């Protein structure tokens, strides 16, 4: 019991190291730093290299930790000056995307420099030391980690209340514009806040080394944990982050005891419960208006030429099996499925106004539902696909019930966290999902051509249906809820129910796309729910233009083509893709909606 509690405290300390940096950065700059996990990973790898060159003593470790923090602070400062400073006024989704670009680039850089293998520290005697506590042995190092928590909390508290710098940061957290009007140069302030956050992430990284290792997946798992903590505690609230770290750390360590399989689900359930009762987190305040110029475009019906082109493309796609070989057909199928997937996300984030950073969740749920129906229940395709749609719709409705009342950042972070948890379940629940090996042998029982036509019919039909819904009264009412929920409620619209319906519909369509994908590939893997897939969908929608109805269709085709080309050209596709995302965001900081691309027709 005591040991479990101590483990919980140690987990809480690590969570707090990560979350405090994230929440302080958010508070001051209003940027949700997706790359926070990457800073943590860099801290672990850099720390590993630095410690390897220092004596393996406590003092050597302390020196290494300080050096790592200094290096990360420098890196963080450069990141802020080079990238984030330029996008403070961009829509939040673009900020998330840009920092995700950093995540991709750091992944490839780390893999290039340190290699793909896990790195662990040699463990000198002082690290292996134990302390006797109530008859049980407890690692001494973990006690040090636990001690970091109150020390850090105290230091941050003193820093924020007793120094001029801290007062300015808190002022910026409350009202940036007012602080600017008072003549305070915020650039240095924000850079220093970011450097501090990065240093804390680096410290978390190096402290993770003795009990574990540095590996290439630690960035995303860390940032998901940190998001959950920050959301539960309240965005921008330091004491909230401390409280939430304690809560979730304890939940994690006791959860493993009671429900070994469900510890992640437990964390998620806690988060859902907190947000249902307190939509701004435990100690968070409602976010003040961000004053961000979200461009709302005037939506018109598609011109006749575009419609004709669309029908012509559909006709050509229907004839394709008569001309093309199996490989070309499989590429086309991938594009068609991407189209439906992107259109479903577009419904949610465009007209629905709900930016989702975890749309892969519904895709993956659909894929796994179809595969499990085939495998466990021996269901044929005509039963497996409806199962995929229904399960995804049901999950989306249940999850949507919690999140449709939330706005921008909270929604994006929660959808992301939910998708990561679905991913973890697919990954860990090996008995059912096959874990990393996935589920193989999910074949449609149709010829290539027959299946292609089915995919074409369902994807084109589904996409057209979504378009039809958007032009129907429901679609108008949904857009109205986004444009002005105040006015929408004042003319009798139930904005919450409208959004929930859109969320469910989008989940169902994504589930259908996922189910079809499972059959097209003949298998399902946890990567179907990966963050990468969510971001793929986001990029397709953004590439085509969020504010257009035809955008996601064109975006899906363009992006799938681009992506396949990139994969075949270079091993460092993550680096290139990340760099492209960043360039895209820097070039169009107001979103592509402000730009008229040739593809941005309605």
């Amino acid at each position, binding site marked *: 019991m005591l040991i479990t509690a101590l483990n919980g405290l140690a987990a809480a300390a690590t969570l707090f190291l990560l979350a405090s940096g994230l929440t302080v950065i958010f508070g001051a700059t209003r940027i949700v730093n997706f790359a926070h996990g990457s800073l943590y990973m860099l801290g672990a790898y850099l720390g590993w290299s630095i410690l390897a060159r220092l004596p393996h003593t406590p003092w050597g470790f302390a020196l290494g930790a300080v050096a790592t923090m200094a290096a990360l602070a420098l890196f963080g400062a450069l990141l802020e000056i080079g990238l984030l400073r330029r996008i403070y006024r961009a829509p939040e989704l673009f900020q998330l995307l840009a920092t995700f670009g950093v995540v991709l680039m750091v992944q490839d850089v780390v893999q290039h420099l340190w290699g793909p293998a896990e790195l662990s520290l040699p463990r000198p005697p002082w690290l292996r030391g134990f302390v006797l506590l109530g008859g049980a042995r407890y690692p001494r190092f973990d006690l040090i980690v636990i001690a970091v928590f109150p020390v850090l909390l105290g230091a941050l508290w003193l820093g924020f209340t007793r120094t001029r710098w801290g007062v300015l940061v808190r002022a910026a957290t409350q009202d940036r514009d007012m602080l600017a009007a008072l003549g305070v140069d915020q650039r240095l302030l924000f850079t220093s806040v970011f450097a501090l956050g990065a240093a804390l992430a680096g410290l978390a990284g190096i402290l993770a080394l003795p009990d574990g290792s540095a590996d290439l997946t630690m960035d995303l798992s860390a940032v998901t944990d940190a998001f959950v903590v920050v959301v539960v505690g309240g965005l921008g609230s330091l004491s909230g982050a401390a409280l939430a770290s304690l809560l979730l750390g304890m939940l994690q360590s006791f959860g493993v005891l009671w429900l070994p399989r469900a510890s992640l689900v437990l964390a998620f359930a806690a988060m859902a419960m907190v947000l249902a009762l307190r939509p701004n987190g435990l100690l968070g305040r409602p976010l003040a208006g961000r004053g961000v110029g979200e461009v709302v475009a005037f939506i018109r019906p598609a011109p006749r030429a575009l419609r004709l082109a669309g029908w012509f493309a559909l006709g050509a796609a229907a004839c394709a099996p008569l001309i093309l070989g199996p490989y070309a057909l499989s590429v086309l199928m991938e594009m068609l499925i991407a189209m439906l997937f992107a259109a479903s996300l577009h419904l949610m984030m465009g007209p629905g106004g709900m930016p989702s950073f975890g749309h892969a969740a519904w895709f993956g749920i659909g894929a796994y539902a179809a595969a499990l129906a085939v495998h466990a229940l021996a269901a044929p395709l005509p039963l497996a696909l409806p199962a995929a749609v229904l399960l995804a719709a049901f999950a989306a409705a249940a999850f949507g019930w919690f999140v449709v009342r939330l706005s921008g950042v909270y929604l994006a972070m929660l959808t992301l966290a939910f998708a990561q948890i679905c991913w973890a379940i697919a990954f860990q629940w090996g008995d059912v999902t096959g874990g990393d090996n996935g589920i193989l042998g999910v074949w449609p029982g149709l010829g290539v051509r027959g299946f292609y036509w089915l995919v074409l019919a369902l994807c084109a039909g589904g996409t057209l249906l979504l378009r039809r819904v958007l032009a*129907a009264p429901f679609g108008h*009412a949904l857009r109205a809820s986004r444009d002005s929920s105040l006015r929408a409620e004042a*003319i*009798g619209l139930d904005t919450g129910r409208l959004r929930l319906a859109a969320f469910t519909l989008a989940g169902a369509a994504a589930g259908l796309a996922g189910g079809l994908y499972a059959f097209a590939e003949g298998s399902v893997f946890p990567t179907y729910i990966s963050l990468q897939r969510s971001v793929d969908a986001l990029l397709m929608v953004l590439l085509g233009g969020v504010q257009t109805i035809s955008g996601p269709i064109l975006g899906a085709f363009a992006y799938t083509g681009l992506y396949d080309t990139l994969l075949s050209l270079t091993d460092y596709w993550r680096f290139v893709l990340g760099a492209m995302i960043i360039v895209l965001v820097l070039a169009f900081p107001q979103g592509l909606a402000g730009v008229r691309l040739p593809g941005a027709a309605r």
Partner: protein
Amino acid sequence: MSVLRVERLRKSFGGVQAVRDVSFAVEAGEMLALIGPNGAGKSTCFNMLNGQLRPDAGHIDIAGRDTAGLPPRAVWRLGVGRTFQITATFASMSVRENVQLALLSQHREVWRLWRPAAARHAAAAEALLAQVGLAAQAGRAAAVLAYGDLKRLELAIALANAPRLLLMDEPTAGMAPTERVAQMRLVRDLASARGLAVLFTEHDMDVVFGLADRILVMNRGALIAEGNGEAIRAHPEVRAVYLGTGATSGGH
């Protein structure tokens, strides 16, 4: 029976009593102006009337039903149209579509998923727009309208469900002086012709004294005076806190 009857309405924010024991009534066909200095509690009052805020205490009777605590959409269903101090319209839609949506909602058709919305109630929407003088702008994006035209659009939207009560929070703010009187004269005519009850706040004293049947004056959350233009102009406390002792702004 009064269309709107408010009894001992109360609302506090923290330690501040924004609205204290306010009671009044509006009859059908009557235009009632609610005036007072900034921070008097006028908007808080409005927000309680249409359900955006829940009163701490008191009753709000609309056409014989107690609506305190009902959400705005339920209050709207009882026949209450609302315009906002800062206009709220749907920026991604055309002017006509803005009004059409209100009509769709009134006919309980917003959950239809199949037939396009474009043609539904188009003629009725055009008629409403013509009424407020926006017919020529029907096809334009609501987002590009001038502020005065947005106020007119809000009025058209508010009229879409043939309301029995119209709540207008600073309906002419941002309009040119001549437009103001024209806009409120239109409302005056509607009120008389349809027996529409209108409650509005306004800082333009020409509009208030020229068109309102009765005037309520609020200060620091409480009603300090009630009466016709002459009585209000002569009221010493109103002159002290709002009109100014020179009382020239009424200017007749």
